[in-house]
C-alpha cells in the first residue's frame, strides 16, 4: 500500500490550518471592531465559502489561479511555476474552504470575552499585544482550539475544490479523499476500504483529542474549585 495520499493530506491540512489559525483569529479580532455595516458585509463574504458547494469554490479559484488567468498567468511569467495541479495547490482550496470555520468560532469566542479585562489591562499599562496573547487568547482558548481542530479535520477531508485545483496524480497530488474516489471509479474495493478505514481512524482520533482536551480543562477547573473550598 502506497502511503503517499496520507502524508500528502496531512501536510496540506497542517499547513492550511496554521495559515487559517492566524488569518481567522486576526480577522475575527479586527472585524469585531469595525462599524456595523462594514462588519455585516465582510461577515457574509467571509462566511460564504462555508455554504457554497466546494465545486463552486474550486471553479472560482481556477478562474483566478489558472495559468491563463490574472494571478496564475502573472506567477507563471514571473516565477515560472503553475499555481494549479501541484501538491500545494490544494492548500489554496482547503484554506478558502476552512477559513469560515476558524473565523466564526474565533469570533464567537471573542464575543463572549469580557472587554473590561482588556480595559483594565490597558489602564495598568499592559501593551495591547500582551493583552491579546496573554489574556484574551487564554480566556478564549476553548473556542479558538475547537475552531482550529475543526478546521484541521475539515481540511483533511476536503474533496471538491481540491480535486478541481490539484487534480489526481498518484504520488504527486493524490490525497486520501481523491484516492478513495479514484479507487471507487476503478472498482478497487479492497484498497478503497482500507483508505476509508484510515480516514475514519484519523477523524476519530482528532475528535477524541478535542474531547480529552476539554475534559482535562474541566478536571483542572473542578480541582481548583475543590481546593478553594478546603
Amino acid at each position, binding site marked *: 500500500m502506497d502511503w503517499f495520499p496520507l502524508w500528502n493530506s496531512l501536510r496540506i491540512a497542517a499547513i492550511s490550518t496554521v495559515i487559517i489559525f492566524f488569518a481567522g483569529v486576526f480577522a475575527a479580532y479586527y472585524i469585531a471592531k469595525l462599524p456595523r455595516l462594514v462588519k455585516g458585509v465582510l461577515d457574509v463574504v467571509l462566511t460564504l465559502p462555508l455554504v457554497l458547494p466546494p465545486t463552486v469554490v474550486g471553479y472560482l479559484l481556477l478562474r483566478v489561479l489558472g495559468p491563463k488567468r490574472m494571478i496564475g498567468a502573472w506567477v507563471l511569467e514571473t516565477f515560472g511555476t503553475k499555481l494549479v495541479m501541484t501538491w500545494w495547490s490544494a492548500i489554496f482550496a482547503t484554506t478558502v474552504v476552512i477559513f469560515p470555520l476558524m473565523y466564526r468560532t474565533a469570533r464567537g469566542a471573542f464575543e463572549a470575552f469580557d472587554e*473590561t479585562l482588556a480595559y483594565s489591562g490597558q*489602564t495598568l499599562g499592559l501593551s495591547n499585544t500582551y493583552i491579546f496573547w496573554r489574556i484574551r487568547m487564554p480566556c478564549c482558548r476553548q473556542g479558538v482550539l475547537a475552531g482550529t481542530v475543526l478546521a484541521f479535520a475539515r481540511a483533511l477531508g476536503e474533496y471538491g475544490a481540491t480535486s478541481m485545483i490539484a487534480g489526481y496524480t498518484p504520488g504527486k497530488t493524490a490525497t486520501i479523499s481523491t484516492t478513495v474516489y479514484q479507487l471507487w471509479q476503478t472498482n478497487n474495493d479492497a484498497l478503497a476500504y482500507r483508505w476509508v478505514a484510515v480516514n475514519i481512524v484519523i477523524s476519530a482520533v482528532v475528535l477524541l483529542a478535542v474531547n480529552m482536551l476539554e475534559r482535562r480543562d474541566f478536571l483542572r477547573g473542578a480541582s481548583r474549585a475543590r481546593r478553594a473550598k478546603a
Partner: protein
Amino acid sequence: MSLYVDIEKRLGAFRLQSKFEVADETLALLGASGCGKSMTLKCIAGIVTPDRGRIVLNDRVLFDSEKKIDLAPQQRRVGYLFQQYALFPNMSVEQNILCGIREGTRAEKRALLSEKIRLFRLEGLEKRHPAQLSGGQQQRVALARILCSEPQAILLDEPFSALDSYLKWNLELELTELLSGFHGPILWVSHDRGECRRSCQSVCVMEDGRTGEVTPMEQLFRRPATLSAARLAGVRSFLPARPCEGGIALEGWDITLPQPASRERVTVAVPDDAVLLGGAYTAVVQRVIHDLDGDLVLLRPEGAADAPPLQALLPKGSTAEVGQTLRFGLSAGRCLCYDACGEIFSADR
C-alpha cells in the same frame, strides 16, 4: 495635585456633559443608573474618547480635543477599579499583581510584589486563581494591582454594586482603609448616598448626563441644589405648591409656608426631620411602614384622599395606626423649594 475634567460626548440620543475638578480628596459622583457616571470614568481612563473637551491630571494633559491630544490608557496613569474587579481569570494572584508593576528588574518586581502581598494581607493566596477567592480577597488583589501601577488618580466604579449588604459593610471599611495610603484625587462612582457620605469628602450630582456643582458632602444633605439631588439625598416627600399671599400654599393641603416665591409653580421637598409631631396641622394616617430607622407614616389631609401624600418618620418609640388623625407641624426653614427647572431658590435655612 488635581484632576480637571470638562468633556462632552454624544451617544445616540444620550448626551454626556461632565465638568468638575477634584483635588487630593475623594469625590463622590452620585447619580441614578444610566446617568453617565461610568461613561465619565471611561473617558478619563481613555477607554472611551470624548467628542470634545479637556482632561488634565496634575498639569499633564490627558485629552484635549482642540490640541488633538489623546493619550492611550497605558500612558494616563489612572487606576480603575472595575465593578467586578476585572481580575485576569487565567492568572494567579501573583501574576495578576505583577501585571500592574510597570518597570524594574526581576528582583525589584519580586520585592515590590511581596511587599504588596503583605500589605494587602494576601499571604498564602499567591498561587490561587481569582475564581478561588472571596469577594473581599478579589477586591484586595485588584487594589494591590492598581496601586502597583503607581496611578496618579484612582477611579472606583460602584465598587460594591454586586455584593450583599452584609458583605458590603466590611469591604467598605476595608476599602477606605486601604485607600488612605493613596495621595491623589479619587473619584468614587455610586448611586448609594450612605456609601458616599461615609467615604467621600465632597460630592458632584449627575443627572441625565450632566454634572452639577461640586459641593462639600454635608451640603448635599443640608441643602441639595436640585430636585434630583434632593431625591439622591434621601428626601421622600415632594409636594406641588403655588405662590399665594403670605408665602406658598401646598396643593391639596391647608398649609402655607411663609416663604417668598416669585415663580409660578414650585415643588416643596420635605425632609423627614422637617415634620414635627404635635403642631397646628392635622392629617389622617393612610399607611404605616415599619422601616429600620423607625415607623414611616404616609399622611393625607382629612377628607381629601387624592391630595399628594406627605411622608414622615415618627421618632423612635412612638407609633401610629392607619386611620388615626395625627397632629403635626412643619418646620418651614427645613423645607426646600424648587422651581420648575428643579433648581433650589429658598436661600434661608
